[in-house]
């Protein structure tokens, strides 16, 4: 069964460092997303991406964040200068329908900023 894959599963970084989280969405999906989940809190929307551009972003997704789909298969989330509060589980998701419906999530990257 097709699945969304994310690497790495765990990432530890120092505050102020740049990190890149990688995702390979399901191959025939058109809509791509990043969500995050701080320990003990709700899953929160970060950004949606369609047709090679950001279609929507939340208040969390500030200038320190960027997304890219460089080669038609990988979908990356970059955090330029990490802060302690960026520590969370980051989930990539993809879907074939607009509107965020019927999304399939990856297993996540646990980011720890020290």
């Amino acid at each position: 069964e097709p699945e969304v894959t994310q690497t790495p599963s765990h990432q530890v970084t120092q505050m102020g460092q740049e990190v890149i989280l990688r995702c390979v969405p399901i191959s025939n999906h058109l809509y791509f997303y990043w969500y995050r989940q701080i320990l003990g809190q709700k899953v929160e929307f970060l950004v949606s991406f369609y047709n090679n551009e950001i279609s929507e972003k939340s208040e969390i997704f500030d200038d320190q964040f960027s997304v890219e789909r460089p080669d038609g298969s990988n979908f990356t989330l970059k955090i330029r200068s990490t802060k302690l509060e960026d520590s969370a589980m980051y989930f990539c998701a993809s879907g074939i329908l607009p509107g965020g419906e019927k999304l399939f999530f990856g297993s996540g990257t646990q980011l720890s900023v020290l």
Partner: protein
Amino acid sequence: TQLLEQSPQFLSIQEGENLTVYCNSSSVFSSLQWYRQEPGEGPVLLVTVVTGGEVKKLKRLTFQFGDARKDSSLHITAAQPGDTGLYLCAGAGGQNAGNMLTFGGGTRLMVKP
């Protein structure tokens, strides 16, 4: 800001019992998703309900979308220890929702043998 409230937050029951989890909002959604999440893993999609009043069954799990598309419920019949996990509801396509899913806080279910 759209909110989805799930209740109860925690539920501990004995194997064989029935249970219902609720997901409520003051906002209308075009669809409601139910996910199950294991520790350290991503949410796994169980079902999507789209039509007001719709009922979907997945083995011992019954999902219902409210007539006004503001609420949903998940009913589990004869719960098994394998049902233990975190159940999340997530709404899509609500007013001003755009392309995002709005998640509830989850119901953590423990089924004891």
